[in-house]
């Protein structure tokens, strides 16, 4: 990688702008399959963990996957060991990675989020926290990330609990993600990331009953890239904090489109499933593209240069 792709992401010093999407690359399981090469050639400049919750979760009943045109639906259901299990078993292993660790958290209530932010934020091995707000708040019954008010209130509840960067992972399932992003910024978020998966469902082609064990799930992959690009553009225009863009990114060319749309960094999700080293390829394609365009140096600069 010849071009200098390093950047500052709300205080995090990153070697390049390519992260992983939460829940799309398990660094611990990958090591079981590929060995130390995973740590030695880690594709991402920061590692975003799968979302953890206060209590352990088993996840949704199978089937959990359905392949769609140029994409896939997942209804995984956030299986995880819970906060204590994560801190005890996973954190030490993830701390061995050579890159900053961003822990994704979700809870059914503000207190639950507060508990997670305190628990995770207290660890030196954790660089930043991503708030996954694509969940209902039991107090209001509303999906936090679909409501500016809910999102703002959540940030106010947790902002004071940690000095670490707080990244809000926005949901695309609302009319105006930019308004939610503004609420997050006003609430003290250091960055926003988007898009999460789009609400989707599938039927058994033979039996016609709902295919997924949980009834519905979330759509990801190239199919949603045009929607992601649009929301990233709108959100980047609406806030002054950095934006981490994702949604169907499969190549350096796609990455540049997101950076041009105002993203400071991008994340690779579903593409990891097709090729475990997709991230590595995308970084080098991005480096080549930037060199070819004479845009090496801080890629964030692209945004200013061409976004409208």
């Amino acid at each position, binding site marked *: 990688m010849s071009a200098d792709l390093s950047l500052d992401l709300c205080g995090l010093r990153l070697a390049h702008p390519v992260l992983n999407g939460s*829940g799309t690359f398990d660094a611990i399981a990958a090591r079981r399959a590929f060995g130390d090469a995973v740590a030695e050639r880690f594709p991402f400049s920061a590692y975003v963990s799968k979302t953890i919750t206060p209590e352990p979760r088993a996840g949704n009943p199978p089937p959990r996957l359905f392949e769609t045109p140029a994409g896939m639906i997942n209804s995984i259901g956030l299986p995880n060991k819970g906060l204590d299990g994560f801190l005890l078993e996973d954190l030490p292993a993830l701390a061995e990675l050579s890159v900053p660790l961003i822990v994704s958290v979700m809870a059914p209530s503000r207190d639950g989020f507060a508990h997670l932010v305190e628990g995770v934020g207290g660890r030196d091995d954790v660089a930043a926290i991503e708030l996954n707000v694509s969940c209902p708040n039991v107090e209001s019954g509303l999906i936090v990330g679909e409501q500016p008010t809910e999102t703002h209130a959540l940030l106010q509840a947790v902002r004071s609990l940690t000095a670490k960067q707080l990244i809000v992972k926005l949901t695309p399932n609302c009319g105006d993600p930019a308004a939610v992003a503004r609420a997050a910024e006003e609430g003290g978020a250091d960055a926003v990331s988007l898009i999460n998966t789009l609400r989707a469902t599938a039927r058994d082609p033979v039996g016609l009953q709902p295919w997924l064990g949980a009834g519905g799930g979330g759509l990801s*992959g190239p199919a949603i890239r045009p929607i992601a690009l649009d929301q990233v553009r709108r959100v980047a225009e609406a806030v002054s904090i950095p934006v981490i863009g994702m949604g169907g990114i499969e190549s350096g060319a796609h990455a540049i489109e997101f950076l041009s749309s105002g993203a400071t960094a991008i994340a690779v999700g579903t593409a990891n499933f097709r090729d475990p080293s997709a991230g590595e390829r995308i970084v080098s394609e991005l480096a080549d593209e930037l060199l070819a365009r004479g845009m090496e140096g801080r890629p964030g600069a692209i945004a200013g240069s061409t976004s409208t």
Partner: protein
Amino acid sequence: MSADARVLAPFARRRAAVSANVATGGYRIFSALDGSGPEPEPGQFYMLATERWGSSSGRPYLPRAFSVADAEAVEGGVRLDFLVEAVGPGTELLAALAEGEGVLLTGPLGRPFSGPAELAPGASGAVLVGGGIGIAPLALLRRRLASAGVPQRVLLGFRDREHSGAVEELVRCEEVRLATEDGHAGHRGYVTDLLAVLLAGDDAQTAAVYACGPPAMLEAVRALCAQREVAAELAMEAPMACGFGSCFGCAIPLASGGYMRLCVDGPVVRADEISTALVEGSGHR
């Protein structure tokens, strides 16, 4: 997760050249020369795609999982054999691969079969039970056991002549007992009938059973072995997006509660790890 003899995969998807693709009753066997990968263990699998994956319908998009049916170190790398049943867009593209074309693969992946001693301490021998397309991983297992001097019996079941494929090609073996639902060869009925008879014998307790095949067959094997208290390993299937533990899509319910990820905790599972081999959306229809 118990330590196992799994062989690690290179950390990248790579291209292998297709060296052969032959028809075998109902299925196709194609071979690819893997220039940079290790020799897999029996029971491991690869995630496969062709170079022109996809169609105007946008599928197949994700790679597809395939047990390695046989593998041999040859000049220039490792020859990998895959047994393919065309049941949809992905398998159709793979079944149509021509010599010289490329196949994109990641692997070997997953937990292989354990040795008989490990599976059933003091096992006098191995019993291999296969059904339909599920006989794929048995060929490699058989060769490895044979070269280790482990006495073995092979029981194979097929629906009908159309689906009796790959026996000769894959299981070149003295003693194979067949069961066919249409009775065109061997016992008329299920392969598990043969297993039941065999396990009735006195050396049953010390046998190590290795099974792969359709969910219904695996469940019958599981129940039978549980009842006779015979140690067994089952090679299972589940929908897989990644194959290396990252998507959590391949969930299989554990007897102890919760789920395992079949791609990293399997695809070979100990029969007593699960309470049923019948999982929604998993395995061949």
